[in-house]
């Protein structure tokens, strides 16, 4: 077969033009939608230069964003690393929006563009559109408009109130960004119609069950307890509240309206990114699995040449490289590697199950077609639950995973479980917890405000497993919190089991 004359090839060599991109996209689409049954937003592919890629990096990958010095800092950092050749640039950036925007670099070869389009424009895109957490928490249609609004709002605020004032508010809000997300759906404010309906249903139920006899049964006198002051206050302020930015936006007494709006903008951006942090591994796994499958299929169909396929495999294998724990390059578990391995493993279980798989995964083992299983997993799970549900003994053995317990009270680390019959479930559970924000991030809540006294804000950190906050950082953040609250702030670190206070940090608002 002569590669130069083969009519089926999508492109030859490494050069590409816009027509090539279109052909590649259409070929990928055929496989992604036709064979894999993916469900994607319309695609928009934007070609950018490496300089623009650095720009995009600096503002956390968003195409337009308000101005803040920290983005300048990130830019300077990336630029220094890139110039010295210590770090390459990503081949693409993809935005969770509708239409789904993928940025591809002009330096990429035609093969890389194919890889990137399959990876981002179909893999990530499908995940963004179908995953439950993304559907619940982000608004893909509105995000670009919202960013535009945020950018203009901040720029106007800078003009009216001065760059320094805006910067200070942004700094403070950024420091609390991780505590600026709702993890549960907010309690819905009752409206009249649904309240009436509920009342009616309750009355009907009471009438059905009415029996006059109950009135004659002797019982304890029901003492009607009036809610205490504390309870009333906490109900009024919707406390306890884990979303610090939301609390400040709604209740901080001395914020100017524009400051409230800025706090709200930062909170909304944090909320927009929250699903990405919970599904990083699955999202990358989904994209990697998709590009691997699409490009292999294109190669089978003779639409990309053998040489191009080798380039694909070379890039693919460096993306999913997982150094072992004692390797100097080890820096945590590579989300691409674990995600891809788990999805390949699911495919294996569906197509060629072993006896062990039959026992562990009776619902899916041997069902033949992996795609429905994967599509369901991509839609309904997040990293933590995905591992808990689908990490198989076979994969635990393959990665030789082991579980280490590190108790600072003891002189040595202890191996708690390894990849054997006794350890599978424990390793799986521990790995899942490693991906659970509830375990890895500090649990910090606003618990009370001294309304009748000096308006002191009381924040509580519930210390899990004896892991207290890093003190210096905590004080810096508290200073920002006190600035937004504009009265004293007290952070208590509390042991949730005993209720004892372990440490306290009190910070006064900056005077000026």
């Amino acid at each position, binding site marked *: 077969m002569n590669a130069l004359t083969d009519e089926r090839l999508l492109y030859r060599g490494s050069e590409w033009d816009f027509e090539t991109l279109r052909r590649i996209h259409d070929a990928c689409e055929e496989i992604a939608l036709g064979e894999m049954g993916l469900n994607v937003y319309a695609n928009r592919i934007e070609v950018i230069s490496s300089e623009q890629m650095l720009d995009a990096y600096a503002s956390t990958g968003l195409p337009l964003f308000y101005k803040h010095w920290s983005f300048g800092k990130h830019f300077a950092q990336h630029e220094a690393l890139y110039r010295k050749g210590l770090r390459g640039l990503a081949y693409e950036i993809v935005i969770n929006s509708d239409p789904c925007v993928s940025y591809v670099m002009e330096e990429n070869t035609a093969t890389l563009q194919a890889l990137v389009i399959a990876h981002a424009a179909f893999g990530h895109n499908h995940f963004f559109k179908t995953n439950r957490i993304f559907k619940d928490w982000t608004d893909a249609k509105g995000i670009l408009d919202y960013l535009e609004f945020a950018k203009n709002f901040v720029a106007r605020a800078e003009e009216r109130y001065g760059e320094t004032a805006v910067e200070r508010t942004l700094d403070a809000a950024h420091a609390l960004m991780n505590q600026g997300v709702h993890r549960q759906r907010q309690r819905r404010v009752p409206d009249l119609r649904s309240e009436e309906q509920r009342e009616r249903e309750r009355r009907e139920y009471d009438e059905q069950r009415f029996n006059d006899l109950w009135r004659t049964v002797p019982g304890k006198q029901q003492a009607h307890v009036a809610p205490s002051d504390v309870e009333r206050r906490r109900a009024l302020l919707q406390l306890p509240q884990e979303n610090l930015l939301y609390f400040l936006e709604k209740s901080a007494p001395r914020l100017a309206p524009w400051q409230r709006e800025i706090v709200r903008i930062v909170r909304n951006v944090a909320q927009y990114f929250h699903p990405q942090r919970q599904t990083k591994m699955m999202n990358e796994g989904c994209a990697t699995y998709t590009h691997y499958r699409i490009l292999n299929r294109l190669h089978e169909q003779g639409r990309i040449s053998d040489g191009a396929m080798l380039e694909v495999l070379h890039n693919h294998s460096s993306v999913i490289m997982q150094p*072992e724990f004692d390797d100097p390059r080890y820096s945590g578990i590579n989300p691409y590697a674990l995600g891809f391995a788990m999805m390949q493993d699911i495919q294996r279980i569906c197509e060629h199950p072993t006896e062990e798989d039959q026992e562990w995964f009776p619902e899916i083992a041997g069902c033949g077609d992996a795609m429905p299983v994967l599509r369901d997993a991509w839609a309904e799970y997040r990293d933590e639950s995905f591992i808990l549900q689908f990490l198989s003994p076979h994969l635990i053995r393959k990665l030789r995973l082991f579980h280490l317990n590190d108790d*600072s009270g003891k002189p040595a680390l202890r191996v708690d479980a390894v990849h054997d019959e006794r350890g599978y479930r424990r390793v799986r559970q521990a790995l899942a917890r490693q991906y659970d924000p509830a375990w890895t991030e*500090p649990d910090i809540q606003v618990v009370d405000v001294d309304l009748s006294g000096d308006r002191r804000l009381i924040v509580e950190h519930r210390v899990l497993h004896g*892991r207290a906050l*890093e003190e210096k950082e905590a004080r810096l953040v508290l200073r920002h919190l006190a600035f937004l609250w504009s009265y004293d702030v007290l952070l208590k670190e509390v042991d949730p089991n005993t209720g004892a206070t372990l440490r306290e940090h009190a910070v006064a608002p900056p005077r000026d």
Partner: protein
Amino acid sequence: MEILDRRLNPKGKSLPNRQRFLRRAKALIQDAVRDSSAKRDIRGADGGGEVSIPVHGVREPSFSLGEGGQREHVLPGNKEYREGDEIPRPPGGGGGGSGNEGSEDGGGEDSFRFVLTREEFLELFLDDLELPDLAKRRLAQLVDPAYRRAGYTSSGSPANLSLSRTLRNSLSRRIALKRPKPESIAQFEAEIARLEGLGDPDDEIPGLRLLLDRALQRSQRIPYIDPMDVRYRRFEPVPRPVAQAVMFCLMDVSGSMTEEMKDLAKRFYMLLYLFLQRRYKQVEVVFIRHTHEAKEVDEETFFHSRETGGTLVSTALEEMRKVVEARFPPAEWNIYAAQASDGDNAAGDSTRTARLLLEHVLPAVQYYAYIEVGRDGEHGMPGFPRGPTDLWRTYEQLVVAGAPMAMKRVRHRRDIFPVFRELFRKRGLTEEASA
């Protein structure tokens, strides 16, 4: 699906962010810049380059879990461990999984490195310095006209035609003279055509035709663009003072000058060169070194080759006078001179030196700086217990008499910058400080 080419979109989108960052970390970066300038050579000093600042200065704090407590890690690649094995804690405490804990912004490192452009570098480096007032003495003598935008004119060359101004005038004239718009003419025509089609029931066509003719005539009489509308951008010549400077570096290279002393001198020259380069388009440097005789040399020889002999400062001044006469007429050049020496001079040369300086050198230069270098620790006590050197005494008399020169002692690398800043500090500041 759509494919968009964004490559031609404006670049440098994060430039405003970068400026905000530089402003924010200004004090830190300024320190870093001054540090890093200690390692460069004179001409290569202006290239911008990498600086590193302590990371805590630009930290973005967030709540994070500290050391201690119970942690769990799941790691890949087990080799020989079995359940229940105890592993000694690796040094550093973080355990095998410390990689997970690294913060996103690379906050694990102690310093933050990045690259400054040349402009940013010099801006920070020479932030609040200025040339002494006396530099103005000759600035305005030779003029070199430059052109500057200055409003509009009704005559000029086609290249300077201002389209927007011209069309604005034309539009206001057309409105003022009620020139019929093309649309209204088209409307008349359409109306006539429509009525013709209907057979003209109300006999309106002749009236309309009259109106149409009038409109056509009027639009011909009143042109779209009249010569009186046309405007050109006007440029005005402004005299610009000549902006070229020459810097004389004079140095004693006799045996008594050690490498250390020469290094101090070099640092001072470097600062001066940078500073002049900021203020003048073109800066020439002349290196003159002397023992008991003086010679103009290149930079390499100036700093690195060794020479033996006595010390006669006057020879260097004589050489400088010759070079000035031959190549740098003071009327056209701003001349700066900096002399570095350990203060030794042959007995009996002082008078000659003072006379040369007073009569030939000082009248020609804008500023004359004398740096006396000494070794750190050479003199046990602060000050010079050995007493002022010959040269210092000689120059001191001149300064007291009001000559335009400055003199300072430098004994350590860390003195260079303060001394330089003192010599060139803004006048207003000095007076306030001393008042």
